[in-house]
């Protein structure tokens, strides 16, 4: 259905010919074990971005937030963030959420090695069911603030997770929802990556009346081996 794949073109100012801006709406699905703080990351993101925050009308399982891309100031991205239940027994519901997603943020807890295993199984499932041509996947190790206070608390080494992400072609960040470290960078990077994938297909924004093909197409260059950290 047309909930995410329709690029929205917005004329920024009165001058139709020159001052055009692009607004893209992306769906991001949030995956990870129930204790890793995935909801907290999103709350932090939504709270820290000052750009027109709107309280969701129903509840915190669905949030949306708009950001401007740092590298493309004329591009505005509206993230629609779909939270999923992290408990193992509700795993079967996940396909209802990740269908048609443009990005997936998979979160683990750097103090809980088991949560990385779970995160890896999500990566596999997404690659099998959705395919990473159509999906930007980002792996995030949360709760680094605990390690900053007590280095022995860390159970997952940054290098190990990073290497895994590299091999799988995922974006990788370590974050702290508590301090905010890494949080806005993640959404910037995901936004940038999805824009690169989708932006190509977005025709000139002055052509809004023309029928558009907004199907997500496979990118011509395969950049899935590159990794950002």
């Amino acid at each position, binding site marked *: *259905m*047309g909930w995410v794949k329709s690029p*929205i073109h917005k004329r920024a100012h009165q001058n139709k010919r020159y001052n055009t801006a692009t607004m893209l709406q992306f769906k991001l699905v949030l995956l990870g074990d129930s204790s890793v703080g995935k909801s907290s990351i999103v709350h932090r993101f939504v709270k820290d971005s000052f750009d*027109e925050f709107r309280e969701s*009308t129903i509840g915190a399982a669905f949030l*949306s937030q708009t950001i401007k891309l740092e590298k493309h100031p004329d591009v505005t991205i509206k993230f629609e963030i779909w939270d999923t*239940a992290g408990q193992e027994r*509700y795993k079967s519901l996940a396909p209802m959420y990740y*269908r048609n997603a443009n990005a997936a943020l998979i979160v683990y807890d750097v103090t809980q090695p088991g949560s990385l295993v779970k995160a890896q199984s999500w990566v596999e499932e997404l690659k099998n069911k959705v395919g990473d041509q159509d999906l930007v996947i980002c792996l995030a190790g949360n709760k680094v603030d605990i390690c900053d206070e007590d280095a022995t608390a860390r159970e997952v080494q940054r290098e190990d997770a990073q290497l895994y992400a590299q091999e799988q072609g995922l974006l990788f960040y370590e974050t702290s929802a508590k301090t905010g470290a890494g949080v806005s960078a993640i959404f910037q990077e995901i936004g940038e990556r999805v824009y690169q994938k989708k932006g190509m297909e977005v025709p000139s924004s002055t052509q*809004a009346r023309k029928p558009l093909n907004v199907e997500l197409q496979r990118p011509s260059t395969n950049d899935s081996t590159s990794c950002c950290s």
Partner: protein
Amino acid sequence: MQMEDRQESPKSQSALVTEPADIKKIKSEDFPSQNDDEEPFYDFQAFVKLMKDPRADPIVRYTRSFLNNFVTKRELWTSEEQRKLVNDFKVFVFDKLTLYEPFKSLDAANLLNAKEGMEKLIMGKLYHKCFSPCLKSQLNVLDKGHKLDLDHDAMLADKREEFRFIDPQHLEINDKISSKLETFTQLSAKELGRMNGYKAPRDKMVCALNACRVIFGFLKHLKLERDGADAFIPLLIYAILKSNVESLISNVNYIERFRYPGFLRGESSYYLSSLQGAAGFVANMQVESLHIGNQQDFESKYHANQDALRKERESRQPSDPHKNASIPREPYGPSPSDYILKPLDGATNIVLSKFAELFSPAPASPQGHDAQEDVEGHDDITRLAQEMEEKEHARVLRELHAMFPDMDQELIRDISIAKKYRIGACVDVLLTLSS
């Protein structure tokens, strides 16, 4: 639930993007009636009035012709054909609305209302062909899609009986959740059940969102809102499991098929998917799906329930083939024919019948209206709409009094008025006050 074929036809995609959508527009479309801050504009009677304008004749004729073709060209379309036909027509006619007066000169909000009105009009007319429970009598000739809806509803009902004894802990519902759990999940389930009273996909969707909002109101009260889906999904499943909402899966699939994709975005889309997932979870529930602390205790409860069920099923009268074990007997639950004959949205039905001549095969001209008759018709409708509204307000007050027996009745009334009798929003405020 269809996972395939979710891509819309290129035609409708293009229609979506050709709408002059700015940020504000997206918001208003996301949420026609749920947002308390921006008062939504949704007035079916206003749409009907526009349709009676002589200049609307081309639109009326397009609509009439579509409805006639839909019901006469074939006895029964498959669910996927129906989805496509209805969607294609909406794409087509929404485009036409921008070409003909009185729609052409409407502002964005009124044009949106006209589109909503059009969807409500055509789905009201086609409901008996499109909503799977209405097709039960044609079971042997049904296509796979409609049949699966009915099968899944029956599965859900069976599982509800099989696991009706389970406790919150079996679903890993947070220990902090208090004794009020039953009250809130029952209220949420009641809102879900109200979907059966409406024909328009939007109206059904509003019921579903209300149900979710009640759950989130409860979570906010417990300060568990921040847990997001981890806290929400188990409660939604619990509400579905402990309720006797009929035809839940048919309703959800109906919304998904016939709600215009441009309207089914953002939050609506999220909560519809959650409902689909939760209903699917219950319909496929196994002992392994549950968190079982004490195996022995669980087994004895399970077997005791099985015995009880067997007895209940034996004692049920076998005379009525529709009342088999898979259909829960609920005091207020409508039987299949009631889905057509007694819609809660009676106001809509009167409105529809009042200008039914526009959509009857006979070449009736909308210009030929007797002005006097129009006025009377309009009065009827207004009176009925008022009655319906009063009934609804009384219902909301009743529910709230039952939920908050210690609360001052005047206060509940005042809050209900302030919150326009939206039960989810009222519960939110009352919880804040009571804590």
